[in-house]
């Protein structure tokens, strides 16, 4: 059965978190760039320039809030995942301390280079 080491699980968690963070920021920028185009045109009409400006501000605040929420939830999820992984690592250390030999299913003949301390079943 394929297995993922804790080190790799942390790496995967970091990669997903960084992708969501960067993705949300990039999409937010595109969203704002596209949204500002009709507002820019409408603001050239003097009679409606003031209300358009107000609507644009509201729009920017709402969209900015949505993307900030996405990033915040992403960070909270990252912290929670890190805590779960820390727990698993502590549990693994305890288990390994009380039980001699390598992790179950691994060939003790070939110890890993930079061996991860514990593996998770997929």
């Amino acid at each position, binding site marked *: 059965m394929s297995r993922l080491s804790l080190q*790799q699980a942390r790496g995967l968690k970091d990669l997903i978190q960084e992708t969501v963070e960067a993705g949300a920021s990039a999409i937010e920028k595109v969203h704002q760039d596209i949204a500002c185009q009709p507002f820019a045109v409408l603001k050239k009409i003097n009679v409606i320039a003031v209300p358009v400006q107000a609507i644009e501000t509201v729009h920017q605040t709402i969209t900015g809030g949505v993307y900030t929420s996405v990033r915040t939830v992403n960070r909270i999820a990252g912290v929670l995942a890190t805590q779960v992984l820390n727990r698993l690592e502590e549990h693994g250390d305890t288990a390994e301390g009380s039980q001699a030999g390598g992790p179950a299913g691994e060939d003790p003949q070939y110890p890993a280079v930079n061996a991860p301390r514990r593996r998770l079943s997929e």
Partner: protein
Amino acid sequence: MWTDLGISVLNGMFGDYLRDRGNGLAIDMAFYHRNRPLPLTAESLYQAHPHPTTKLCILLHGLGCNEGVWAFRDAAQRYPETSYGTLLQKEFGYTPFYVRYNTGLPIAENGKGLAALLDELLACYPVGIAEIVLIGHSMGGLVLRSACHYGTQRQSPWVGKVGQAFYLGTPHDGADLEKLGHVATAVLHAVPNPITRLIGTILNQRSQGVKDLRSGRLLDDAPDTLGPNGEPAVPWLASAHHYLIVGTLTRDSQHVAARLFGDALVRPPQENTFKPGVNVKLFRRMHHLKLAHDPRVYRQIKRWCGSDLKRS
């Protein structure tokens, strides 16, 4: 197996980013045995190869793969029990060593890493080494050439032992798909539209290893595969015999699809990029990945190995 393959694919796509961020998914270059890194100590080598021979076979996989790519598919086994390495061991006595590495790193960096790794292997190998055969699939062939260059520069003892080098579907002239990716990225960035620019930025996140395939870049300081007079920027290792094995998707090698797409990823190389006397064998109806685990390809490798043994 699928986890390892997934991690290898991620390394191929973003390996330099993973390494720079210290991400746990980044692969460190090492010899692998039974899906585990093989520590370079005499004891581990004895455990992995209880009957070491004086001849070594080093196998290097291509972009986004790992040593599992060498396994013959009909074997349906987890580890590469039947591969060019094991067959060469059985028939010619070559002890096989499978390298796993981060294919997203620059080819030159992997070349330097491989040169150093082979130095370490020679230092702890339990018996004297008479000959080394190198087999590289796709990007692996470029890493081999880069390693030979850097190994020659640092006067590594293993370089003089290399008798044969086999390049299977190696893009010595550059890979067209990456050339297309490069042009697509430039066009998408040039279009004054935030969405196309975003797509261009996402495309541009591909690893340096992938970008190096555009021109088959082997060295840090030589951006192109060809020199000013059309000669290879990196000379082929003079002391070794070089063998190129290429595939085409079609039955007719002169078919327009064969000339445009080659084995789906790599076209047959131009003649001016390899030295006179380099042997080339083209296999029809052979796609890129199949070159790494096909009985017909092995028979050709065996034939060339056999003819070289007779010569020597």
